[in-house]
């Protein structure tokens, strides 16, 4: 009985933490809230209200890239996979241009991220 209660509590806690919404709405993370420090491409890709790339991609070379999803392939050795960096940026700007059934969010086309934010993320991801 006691054990059952513990299980239930564990569930309740994870329910609060996840609030069932993997694409969390814009709750400002510390990165977005701190005005002093400049927001990096890494911040933008990790932030759930910005790129949220981890929702779908693992980043095996980043030890702090936790609870990554599996909709898309792991982001690793990107410069080898994309000799042309502009092509990779285009994938981020609108993945549906090359694959109409892609489930990746068209970050540029739908204005989810600004051009400048996409540039920063491209630089960060290209180095993975």
């Amino acid at each position, binding site marked *: 009985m006691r054990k059952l209660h513990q299980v239930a509590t*564990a569930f309740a806690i994870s329910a609060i933490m996840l609030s069932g919404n993997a694409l969390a709405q814009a709750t400002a993370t510390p990165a977005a809230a701190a005005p002093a420090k400049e927001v990096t491409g890494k911040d933008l890709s990790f932030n759930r209200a910005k790129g949220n790339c981890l929702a779908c991609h693992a980043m095996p070379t980043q030890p702090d890239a936790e609870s990554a999803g599996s*909709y898309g392939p792991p982001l690793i050795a990107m410069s080898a996979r994309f000799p042309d960096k502009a092509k990779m940026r285009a994938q981020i700007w609108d993945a549906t241009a090359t694959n109409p059934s892609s489930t990746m969010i068209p970050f540029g086309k739908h204005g989810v991220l600004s051009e400048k934010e996409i540039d920063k993320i491209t630089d960060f991801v290209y180095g993975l």
Partner: protein
Amino acid sequence: MKQKIITKLLTGMAGLGIALGAATAHATPESDRQELIKYYTTKYPNVKLEDYVYGALAFDADSKAQYDAIMEFPPFEADIEKGRKMWETPFKNGKTYAGCLPSGGKQIAGNYPMFDEAKGKVVTLSNVINDCRVANGEEAYNVDDKKTMGLLTAYMRTLSNGMLSNVKVEGPKATTAYEDGKKTFYSRKGQLNFACASCHVQNGGNRLRSELMSPVIGHTVHWPVFRGGDNLVTLQERYQGCMKSVRAVSPPADSETLNNLEYFHSALSNGLPLKASVFRK
């Protein structure tokens, strides 16, 4: 003949047609359902069809074990009890729900949503309960209200536990409503550009962040759910939540769009057993 070959080719591609909502040309509700079952049983040969009623839990033995432990003494039992009282309390005219619903309200939930030829539209189980109230001089409940329709259906649906989902789509008007629901399910929406199918067909069994994604098969047989053990959530409320998460504006509960979506969606779970209510995190 040529069409048949093309359909065959499409299904051959591990059900890619239905995944993308493309092979709609001569699809019937039954072929849609069969194609989705084939898509998933090919992709996940180790998951049994009957386990799809557990949603995402079918892909995670640990969470399923926790679910089983919780379901032994469901934390929402008191809510079901409240629903039972509501169900058994006679209307002011002395009549009861059991008296005005088909088969006394037992083993019927799997027939809904149903296409009502006289009304020319899809009716959900909540609509039928409201019709019964109004016919007996009571006010209709707001179908969205957890304290009334929510609790009532949480109990009433237990009377159909074990019944196999049996949603019928017959005749041109019913088919039009089904196709409208299908269109909603496969259309991309919101700033984030997802269709229901992007997550629950193409990515069932995958993770979005740490969230395991449930496949569309088996989605409709266990409502309402109690999230976190005590938060009653109806099926259409879940639709609205999913739409909000992709930054789309959802039509309201009981709108023709959501009722048609529920009609299409429920037909895909035909043949699977109903069980109300269940725990979800």
